[in-house]
Structure formats: C-alpha cells, structure tokens
C-alpha cells in the first residue's frame, strides 16, 4: 500500500479526497524540516571549521548580542508557525465537515475485531466494502476498551470509545484493496485488529450489496427489537403513550427538564436507551427502565437506525 520510490516504500497511496490535501501540508512541513535541519547543520559545520581552536591559550573576543537578531529569529519561526497553523486548521475543519448525502456504515470495535454493518443489512467482520466516489460516514463505538479506526490511505483515523459515538468520513478516489488498522493499543491481540477496505466501482458495490441474499436492513432489525423489548408499548405513534412520540424526532432539538436543549442525534438516542433517567424530559415521568447490559452496541445501533427511519428533518437542506 505504499507507492515505491525507486523500489523503496516512502509514501502511502492516496486514495481519498482528503489524502492529497493532507499530503501537500505534509510536503511543506517536510521541506521546512529539511531546510532548517540543513541550515543548522551547515552553519555548525562551517563554524566548526572556521573557528576551530588554533592554540591552547587562545582567547576569542566577545561578541555582543544584537537585539535585532534575537527578534528576527523569534519572529520568523512565529510567522511560519502561524502560517502552518492556519493552513492545517482550515484543512482539519474542512475535512471534518462532510458533504451531504453521505452513505453511512456503523462500526463497533471489540477486543479484537471490527464489526461493521451497512444500513441495508449486510454485516462484515474486519472488512469494509464501499463504493468509489461516494462520501461515506462511519459511526463508531466500542464494546470494551478504546480502539482507533485508522485508514492510512485515506489519511483519516479516530478513536473508538466505549459509551459514545465518534464519526469520520471519507470519499474514496481509487478502487482497490487497502488496510485499515486499530491504532490505539487495546490489549493482547491489538496488532491483529487489522482489516481490509474494498473500494469498488458503484456497480460492483451494488452487486455486492444485493449478493448477500435476503438481508434484513438495520432499521428492520431495529423495529423487531423495538417490539421485542416492549418499547412499543409506551412510545406510541399517536401520542397517547407514556413515552414521547418518536416519529419525526430524529434531528430535532428537544428541551430537557434541566432547561438544556439537545439535538436528537445518535449519541442522544444511545443515552436515552442505556441511561434514560440521566436526561429527564419535562412532560414525562422518568419511568423508562435502563437497557444497559441487556442489549449490545450493535443492537443499540439497530434501534438508532429504526428511530432514524421514523423520519428526520433534513438538516442540511438549506445549504
């Protein structure tokens, strides 16, 4: 997965829209490093030869410290740093704002494997199939310790933390098969948490999706759970139940009893399922039992997918 340079691996393949922009910054920083390293080495070397001691009792003359010089070599690095900071931060901001209509994949890390699930249903272990040219959002959480989902050829990574959701996105630009890694130490088989990303043409991807036979989609699985766990008895769609109506809820702001306003996103729904009493709502008695320990992270994700499928408001519509 490296692009060889005279047969020598020196640069990873860039296979996402993010990769090349990160690489440009990387090249600039490398040039900066090389320039200053050479500059310092050469200056030292020159002084070493020119001002070598010529006799045992030699006493050099003192040199004054010109303030202008001190200011110069304080200001120049500062300007360079400010420049790199601005460049890098705008890039980072841009890269953390994905384009609309991303496709979504859910990732659960556990010691020591990756479970991935597509909303349409297909599940994968240590493999991720995605189409080229489509923005893909990964929503990730962990069953146990901190992991980190890292795809070097896309130049992205993010920690995967138990108890909350993290998300990253990418848009692949080259078909091929690439490694992804766990990049946060997670125990004995940490180095075994490696998998493959298959970047496919959209047609191939469509074939792959439909090739798995009759798959239950995540939302359907979530709906089944919703009934099984009895959620349906309180969260009634006509508003007569003891719990809030979930239809059209996702993506909307809600006001909590504490006065705080939160947008119903993945993290919110997860918290509402595993620890409902931590965020009581004004017009409801907090009677919902906690589901912590009764369902695993993948099932939580399925429930979230179901809540999402009950209708969302398109937040990005106006843009």
């Amino acid at each position: 997965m490296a692009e060889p340079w005279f047969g020598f691996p020196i640069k990873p393949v860039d296979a996402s829209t993010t990769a090349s922009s990160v690489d440009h910054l990387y090249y600039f920083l490398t040039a900066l490093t090389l320039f200053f390293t050479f500059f310092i080495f050469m200056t030292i070397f020159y002084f070493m030869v020119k001002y070598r001691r010529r006799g045992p009792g030699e006493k050099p003359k003192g040199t004054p410290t010109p303030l202008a010089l001190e200011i110069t070599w304080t200001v120049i690095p500062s300007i360079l740093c400010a420049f790199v900071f601005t460049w890098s931060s705008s890039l980072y901001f841009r890269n953390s704002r994905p384009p609309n209509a991303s496709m979504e994949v859910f990732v659960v890390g556990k010691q020591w494997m990756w479970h991935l699930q597509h909303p349409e249903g297909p599940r994968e272990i240590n493999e991720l199939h995605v189409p080229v040219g489509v923005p893909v959002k990964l929503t990730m959480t962990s069953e146990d310790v901190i992991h980190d989902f890292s795809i070097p050829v896309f130049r992205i990574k993010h920690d995967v933390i138990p108890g909350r959701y993290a998300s990253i996105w990418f848009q692949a630009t080259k078909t091929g098969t690439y490694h992804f890694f766990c990049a946060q130490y997670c125990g004995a088989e940490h180095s075994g948490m490696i998998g493959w990303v298959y970047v496919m043409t959209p047609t191939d991807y469509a074939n792959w999706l439909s090739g798995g036979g009759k798959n239950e989609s995540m939302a359907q699985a979530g709906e089944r759970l919703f009934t099984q766990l009895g959620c349906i008895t309180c969260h009634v769609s006509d508003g007569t139940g003891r719990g809030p109506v979930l239809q059209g809820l996702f993506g909307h702001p809600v006001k909590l009893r504490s006065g705080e306003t939160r947008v119903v996103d993945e993290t919110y729904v997860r918290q509402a399922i595993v620890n409902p009493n931590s965020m009581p709502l004004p017009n409801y008695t907090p009677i919902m039992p906690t589901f912590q320990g009764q369902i695993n992270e993948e099932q939580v994700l399925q429930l979230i997918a179901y809540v999402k499928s009950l209708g969302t408001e398109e937040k990005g519509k106006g843009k």
Partner: protein
Amino acid sequence: MAEMSASAAHAAEHERGLRHHFEDMEQQHEAGNLGMWVFLVTEIMFFGGLFAAYAIYRSLYLPGFEAGSRLLDVKLGATNTAVLIGSSLTMALAVHAAQTGKRKALVLFLILTMLLGAVFLGIKYDEYATKWHHGLVPGLKWAPDEEIPGNAPLGSVEMFFCFYFFMTGLHALHMIIGFGIMAVMAAWAWRGKFSPGYYAPIEVSGLYWHFVDIVWIFLFPLLYLIGGRY
C-alpha cells in the same frame, strides 16, 4: 573570577538547631518555610486533579450529584467544619506560644489540636459507618436502601459517592498524617527542643495543618451544601 570571602567563618557559631550547610538561622528558617509552601503547592495540585474531575462530572450529571449530596448529613458536616476551624485556631495559638517561648502552652495547644483532629476523624468514621449501613459505598457495598431524592439516575449517584469517598478519604489520610506530626511536635516541645529562636518545625507543621483545614473548607460546600436542599 570568584574570590573567597574572608568573612564567612560558619564553623564558629553553631546556634542550637542550625544545620551545618546553612549560613545562619535566618537563611535556614526562610528555606524551611519556603520549602513547606512549595510542598503545599504540590498538595494544591494533588487535590486539584480531583476537584477538576469533580467539576466536570458535576456539570455532566447534575441530578445525580445533587441527589447524592442530599443523602449526606449536613449537620455532621457543619459540626466537623467547626471542629476543624477550632483545631486551626489551637494550631495558630501553638505557633504563637512557640514564638513567645511558652513551653507548657505550646504542648497544651498541640494536644488540643490533636484532640480536635481526633473528634473530626471520629465524626467522619460515624458518617462512613452510616453510609456503609445504607449500602452507599461504591465498589465495596453498593446497594442503596434509601430512596434516591428526585429519582436521579443511580449511576450518577454512584459517581457522586466515588468522589465523596475519594475526596474525604484522601483528606482524612492527610488528617491522620497531620495527627502523627503533631504527636512528634508535642513530644519535642515537651522536651524543650524549641525556643523563640528556633521553632521552624512547629511553624511548618502548622502550615500543613491549616492547609488540610482549607481543603475541608472547600469539601464541605462542594459535597454537602450545593445539592439543592431547599
């Protein structure tokens, strides 16, 4: 070139209590005092880590923290605050007695300080025992048999009690260490080790004791009072 000063003949006058590497008592006293203050700064940071964590979790899990706070006995907390302030007074008076060379008063005030410290720890023990009885000790005996005020989430209440025991436990540990130091000081004072010219150990121990008092001055409102008791 540095010259050797002819005047420094430190070997000549060895005042009582002066260690050989200091020039004079003034320097030794200032060094000891500064050293203790620097040590107290490390103590600020030591407790500071806990206080920072407390601030974060309190902001995240307010209902649980308020409920946990209301499960504490504010009367005992306030009594303990008064007891500890009293021990700070006796400690300050002990330093005063040392400065003015009153040996018996010094011993008396040190023993009073220890006594008040013991009362504090006794009350603390009683509080811990009650919490144990009600199953409010995370990790060791967590099965609350009291009604949780405001129906707050149990996990957050448990988190509050983690902080309660870590914070008060570390504070109590400091009290116990202080108790030991006071015992040594009282013994030394009894033997007449101190004089108006040499009382640095008393002063420095006093600084430590007052610091422990200050930690409690903050723990009391943070744990007992700001729980929406109205």
